[in-house]
């Protein structure tokens, strides 16, 4: 707005200069001959093959991600689309990990191709899931998050199952820009140049794709061909970065948004500004990471550091972010038929729950294969199986209860403790407690994770209230919160000490260590959570109608909301303590309850609580049995079940109205 030099340009130049100064400091320190003088040529080798290419990679990878994000956001008309929210980076990373383990010769030949295949698979899956919804932004981002989280969970399980935990995790957790040659810079550079060239050539279709489908088709554009071509280009850029340096979060998201907020209005301006801003962002982050690094190495990988900076940035920007016009979330045209006798149905569910409990206790593998336990053996095994089955069931129930509450309070059928980042927030809280008191007991751990969950949920809702966010933005805020808290976790895990190992175990969720004590704590927690919620049935019935309406019929919205949020945060944290943050039972169970015809608030709650228990018992049983005697994390199985369900939900071909 200021005439002489626009403020944003001044700001970005300033940040660029700062990054440049950080770089200069390193260069001076490494300048040949300035040190001992003995090994001048080694100094220059480090300068020319270490420092310089690292700066080049930071700039080029930042620009490539900025361009990739801009293309994806434009094509999908989704301000949150970018390589990491769409699961492209996670898909590429998982493909690399799988290939490294099971087909090392392919990785040795071309890791870029493997990464590209993984990224394309992720994006193809997401497009397939959301195609019939017209690639509606929230579904796309949600599917992306689902793919990313499942890929990460699978990756964590792979690492766990393959021994060398911490080393691989550091590299898994976030991209490192350390360089010892020019190959990566060249590899990213020529692809970036090609990408920019292609984007410039495809400027017109790209401009039209920013409009809606009907308008674009009206202008005679072959919509799908140009879309797919540009998506492939964006994936190619992003997966190159993954295969060369690892996952770098948030640059692809932040750069285009910051370009817009800095006043880049036309597509041409954005095509210049987004890569430039991405380059400055990554260079600056990497400079700060190097500045903070001690002699023992960089404590936080640059790729995770970008999320630490970018997460708060996005949360702060969200109210100012202009969302593209899009018909709002539509519900299925035919909701399930309501149960004629809901409580009978709930009782039947309860019977099924008891049956599942019995099977989980009785049926299992031993050293001599499958057997139904009975007699003394049963008494013996029940002492082991009962606590973990009870903890799994109660955790599932609590997540389901939290899911019902959050979906009703936010009037958003896609909200849940997992989606809004409340589980990840609990993890960040737990990480903080473990960091300061490595031997903290269950009570302190629980206090930490509850505080983390509460902070995450309150921050999201405060932002939502301030910006008067609709359901879409609420989900976006949740995704940002997820990324931020996951980055905190990745940074702590990368410390590589005993706490890291504990957090890794927590992240994937485990009911293995639980005893009768934990089981009784969880059951008491479940009772303390569900009884008040059942009493608050009317609140839960009214709140989905919206705050204005709830107020108009005399509900003190603030009191009701705050109470319910507190309960939901506590339930999520307590459950996440045992089954990890990624289970998705909180998202699924409320839907399943509705699908079997339980839609009034109390009935839905009761049904979801039982279904949550069923789902988690099943996950726990599978996690114990599938690779017997190796026990995989229960959270991983639960999130895989969740992934399958969400696939069905999104793929069900719900029509948009209007």
């Amino acid at each position, binding site marked *: 707005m200021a005439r002489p030099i626009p403020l944003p340009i001044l700001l970005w130049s300033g940040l660029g200069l700062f990054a440049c100064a950080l770089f200069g400091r390193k260069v001076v320190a490494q300048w040949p001959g300035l040190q001992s003088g003995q090994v001048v040529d080694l100094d220059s*080798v480090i300068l020319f093959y270490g420092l310089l290419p690292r700066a080049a990679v930071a700039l080029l990878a930042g620009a490539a991600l900025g361009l990739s994000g801009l293309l994806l956001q434009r094509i999908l008309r989704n301000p949150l689309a970018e390589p990491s929210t769409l699961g492209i980076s996670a898909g590429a990373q998982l493909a690399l990990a799988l290939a490294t383990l099971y087909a090392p010769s392919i990785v040795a030949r071309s*890791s870029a191709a493997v990464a590209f295949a993984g990224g394309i698979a992720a994006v193809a899956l997401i497009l397939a899931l959301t195609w019939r919804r017209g690639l509606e932004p929230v579904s796309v981002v949600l599917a992306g998050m689902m793919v990313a989280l499942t890929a990460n969970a699978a990756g964590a399980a792979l690492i766990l199952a393959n*021994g060398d935990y911490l080393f691989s995790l550091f*590299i898994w957790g976030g991209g490192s820009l350390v360089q010892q040659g020019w190959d990566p810079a060249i590899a990213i550079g020529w692809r970036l140049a090609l990408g920019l060239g292609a984007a410039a050539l495809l400027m017109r279709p790209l401009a039209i794709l920013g409009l809606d489908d009907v308008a674009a088709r009206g202008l005679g554009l072959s919509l799908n061909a140009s879309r797919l071509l540009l998506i492939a280009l964006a994936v190619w850029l992003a997966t190159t970065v993954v295969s060369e340096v690892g996952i770098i979060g948030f640059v692809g998201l932040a750069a285009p948004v910051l370009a817009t907020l800095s006043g880049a209005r036309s597509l041409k301006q954005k095509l210049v500004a987004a890569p430039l801003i991405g380059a400055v962002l990554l260079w600056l982050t990497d400079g700060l990471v190097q500045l903070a690094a001690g002699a*023992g*190495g960089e404590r936080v990988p640059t790729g995770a550091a970008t999320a630490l900076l970018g997460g708060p940035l996005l949360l702060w920007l969200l109210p100012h972010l202009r969302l593209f016009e899009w018909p709002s979330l539509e519900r299925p045209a035919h909701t399930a038929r309501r149960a004629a006798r809901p409580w009978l149905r709930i009782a039947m569910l309860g019977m099924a729950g008891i049956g599942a409990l019995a099977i989980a206790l009785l049926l299992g593998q031993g050293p001599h294969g499958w057997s139904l336990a009975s007699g003394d053996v049963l008494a013996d095994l029940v002492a082991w199986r009962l606590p973990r089955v009870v903890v799994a069931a109660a955790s599932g129930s609590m997540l389901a209860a939290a899911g019902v509450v959050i979906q009703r309070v936010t009037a958003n059928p896609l909200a849940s403790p997992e989606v809004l980042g409340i589980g990840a927030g609990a993890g960040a809280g737990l990480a903080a407690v473990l960091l300061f008191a490595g031997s903290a007991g269950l009570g302190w751990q629980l206090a930490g994770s509850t505080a983390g969950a509460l902070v995450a949920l309150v921050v999201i809702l405060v932002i939502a209230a301030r910006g008067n966010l609709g359901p879409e933005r609420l989900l976006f805020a949740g995704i940002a919160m997820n990324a931020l808290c996951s980055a905190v976790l990745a940074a702590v895990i990368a410390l590589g000490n005993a706490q890291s*190992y504990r957090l890794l175990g927590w992240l994937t969720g485990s009911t293995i260590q639980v005893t009768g004590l934990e089981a009784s704590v969880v059951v008491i927690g479940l009772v303390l959570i569900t009884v008040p919620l059942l009493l608050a049935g009317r609140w839960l019935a009214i709140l989905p109608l919206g705050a204005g309406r709830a107020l108009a019929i005399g509900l003190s919205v603030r009191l009701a909301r705050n109470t319910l949020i507190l309960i939901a945060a506590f339930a999520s944290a307590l459950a996440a303590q045992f089954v990890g943050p990624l289970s998705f039972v909180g998202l699924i169970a409320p839907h399943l309850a509705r699908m079997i015809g339980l839609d009034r608030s109390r009935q839905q709650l009761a049904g979801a609580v039982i279904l949550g228990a069923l789902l988690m018992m099943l996950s726990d049983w599978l996690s114990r049995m599938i690779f017997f*005697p190796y026990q995989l994390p229960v959270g991983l199985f639960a999130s895989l079940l969740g992934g399958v369900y969400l696939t069905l939900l999104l793929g069900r071909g719900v029509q948009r109205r209007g």
Partner: protein
Amino acid sequence: MAATALLPQPVSAAQLRIASIDWGLLETALAIGVVPAAATELRQFARIAVEPALPASVVDLGLRGSPNYELLRILAPDLILISGFYEYQRPSLERIAPVLALPIYEAGRPPYPLAQSSLLALGERTGRKEDADRYAAETAAELEERRLALHSFASRPAFLISLGDARHFRAFGADSMPGDVLARLGITNAWQDDTSYSAAAPVGIEALARVPEASIIVLAPLPAEVSRGLPGNALWNALPAVREGRVAVLESVNHFGGLPSARRFARLLADAVTREPNHG
């Protein structure tokens, strides 16, 4: 820990059925002729630790971090071995059998003396005191022998690293078994910065240039990517140790091992160095 050793012992020490959660103690038990009934992650153990060879009778309990307690309960050992790292599992394990926690790795302490005292304690507990004493003495003697053999190699410091990918390595410090053995062999560890639980967090290859005169000892396994990326890594190739052929790649050694791993490492190193005349 001493307290558990004093628990009532229903079975005579010689016929104790043992289960080991910790790999270092699994090695140690095998070395003194005690064959555990069960232990963890055996497939991975055979790949990483390699020796001592595992008798087929040992039952796999699953992951070290989450052993299968039900299976362990059915196997009903008389004694369960853990190290400090698995202390959090103690409440569950004690429901099955008495737990004997023998420390090998403690933050900031060289592991060799701890491994040796754990070996002796285990020998005591399992009624194989003589075997344990003999093994400790043999190990000390073997290390001394290797130290003499490596005399010329010891004139230079050495980095002891494992590679994560073609760009990062992890350095083993004095608080790791290979690092401690390195010192006992009279070789200065070129990595003098902090380490935490054996090794430092991964750092870039260029950190190896800080001690130009140092040799480099790489512990297998090498990730697939390394064989593709490392030969073309300009910085790696510019390192004096690489140019002058002072790099030794050793077979895999258990990073968290006991005395058997210490011997294995010393033997592998001596073999590699004496095989290649360049060293020294």
